[in-house]
Every structure is written in structure tokens, then in C-alpha cells.
């Protein structure tokens, strides 16, 4: 009887460890393996805005994927964004911005907006800029 109990306990212990291992692999290990490496910060999925065309090229179609000939979607991003003075900006103190000084004018691009589109088109003075992130 005692041997049977010991065997059953061992079986339950093994099953518990197996379940925990599967849970750990699916929630922790796999996402890290699949997201690959990014030079900047992680990209964020954004809904495709109106105005999408395609272009052909030899690219990766997913992080960590191989180079392949593919037709990829191109999403239009904003052009000539409006700006406000520092006092009118409703940003949090420690949120990230990308700052630039061009033609003597400082301009801040909140990462919260760059992350929506990855790149935007803007102008400071006469200089057309493309902040990316």
C-alpha cells in the first residue's frame, strides 16, 4: 500500500512539474525566442490606417525570420504634424521624447506618437525631418 502511495505521489509531482514547465515555456521562453532582437525599442502593433499600398523587396517578413522576396504593406503616416508650446503640452514628466534642435528651434517628439507610426514626417523651420523610433 505504501509503495502505491509513493508511486502516486511521484506521478502527481511529475505531472505538476510538467504542467509548470509547459506554462513557463509558453509564457516566458517562447515569447523571448520569437520576438528576436530589436535595435531600438520593441515595435507595437498598430491598426492599419487608411491609405495602404504595397511594395516588393527582399526583406524579413517577421522578427528573426529569413530574408525573402516579398510584397509588403506600406502604411501612410502623418505629414507636417502640428506642434504646441511646452506649456500647452500634456506630457508626463518621465515619459520619453526624442528631441532635436534645428535652425535654432527645439522640437520634442513624444515617443507615444512615434510608437504609433514608427516614423512620421515633420518640418522644423525649412528643414523636413523624419523622426523614427
Amino acid at each position, binding site marked *: 500500500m505504501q509503495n502505491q502511495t509513493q508511486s502516486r505521489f511521484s506521478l502527481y509531482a511529475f505531472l505538476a512539474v510538467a504542467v509548470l514547465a509547459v506554462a513557463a515555456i509558453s509564457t516566458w521562453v517562447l515569447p523571448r525566442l520569437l520576438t528576436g*532582437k*530589436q*535595435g*531600438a525599442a520593441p515595435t507595437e502593433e498598430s491598426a492599419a490606417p487608411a491609405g495602404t499600398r504595397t*511594395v516588393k*523587396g*527582399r*526583406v*524579413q*517578413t*517577421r*522578427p*528573426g*525570420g529569413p530574408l525573402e522576396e*516579398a510584397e*509588403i*504593406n*506600406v*502604411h*501612410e*503616416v*502623418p505629414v507636417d504634424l*502640428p*506642434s*504646441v*508650446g*511646452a506649456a500647452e*503640452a500634456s*506630457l508626463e*514628466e*518621465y*515619459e*520619453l*521624447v*526624442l*528631441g*532635436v*534642435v*534645428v535652425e535654432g*528651434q*527645439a*522640437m*520634442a517628439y*513624444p*515617443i*507615444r*506618437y512615434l*510608437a*504609433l507610426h*514608427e*516614423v*512620421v*514626417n*515633420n518640418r522644423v523651420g525649412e*528643414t*523636413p*525631418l*523624419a*523622426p*523614427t523610433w
Partner: protein
Amino acid sequence: MYARRVGEQEVTFDFAEGLLQNNLLFVDRETSSIWSQLHGQAVSGPLEGTPLQVVASMQTTWKFWRQLHPDTRVVTVEGEEGRPYFYRNRTPGTRPPKKRSTTHDTSVLGLGLVVGGHAIYFPFRELERATTPLTLKLGGEQVTIHYRQSALTAWAEDAEGNLLPGVLAYEQGWRDFNPGSETYRAATVSR
């Protein structure tokens, strides 16, 4: 940060759903050439090989940027609030919190720089241990590295105090594009 010019011609970029070395691509509306963000040039299409004009920029907290430039303007995107991005680990080099977070981790962040063809990466954890500002010779030029832990930023200036184009990047991402890059190590003091 790039100037949207090819010679004197202005170009307009859109976001492309493709990657090169796990990094972003964009496409110009004028020629549909594909451009690599970290390579800094067009990688296919009629403008293949054309370099992007780099403009020096700084990634930091809104608080610090406003201190440096009280007269700064701020870009807005009408109708979109976006989600503020933060660094969750404000002490580089320390273990980040175990709880999963959608904010970013500074423990493997650093400043990547290419000066005079010489690539070097300054991990924040090394800048924490170093005495900054740190002046050194890179690619034959004098460069001063600044670091502000409270603003989670580092930047480089030339001998005249002008901001140099550098990028805050995760180390592996920097190495993907600069495989021969040197890594800065703060000098250890023997006790």
C-alpha cells in the same frame, strides 16, 4: 532622426511592414524605394545606396528636455493620445522587476556612436560606474560623453559642444548593425 532630403529633393516616408536585421524599414512616396532605419540608406528601389541625411537628436525624459530647452515646441498628433512610454527600471545595471511590464528596461540600454568610422557602444551600466562627462578620442576626434541617470539618457558632443548623432539602443541590436563595435568599460579602481 533624418532630414527628409535626397540632395535638394524632399521625400516623404511611410512605414513598411518588413524588417532588415530585425530593424525598421520605410518607403518613400516619391520613388517607392525601401530605406533601412539603422543602415541609414535606401536598400532597394531606384534610390538604392542613397544615404539618409542624419540629424543629431537626443532621447530623454520630457522633464529633462524641457529643462535643457525651455522654449521647445512639442509635436502633437491630432485625435490620437498614444500611450506614454517610460523606462521602468530607472537604475541601469540593476535587475529589472520580475513582474512583466510593457515599459522598457534600462539594464541593457546604452549609447551607440560612430565617429570617424569608429563604432563604440557605451552601456548605461558602465557609464554609471564612470566619471562623466567623459572625454576621449574617437576616430581621431575629441568626443565628450554625457550621462544623466535621472533623465535616463546619454549623449555625445564634439569639441565645440555640438550634439553628435548617437542612438540609445539595446546592446544586441547595436551589435547587429555594428558587429565590429568596441564596448566602453569603465576603469576599475583596485582597492
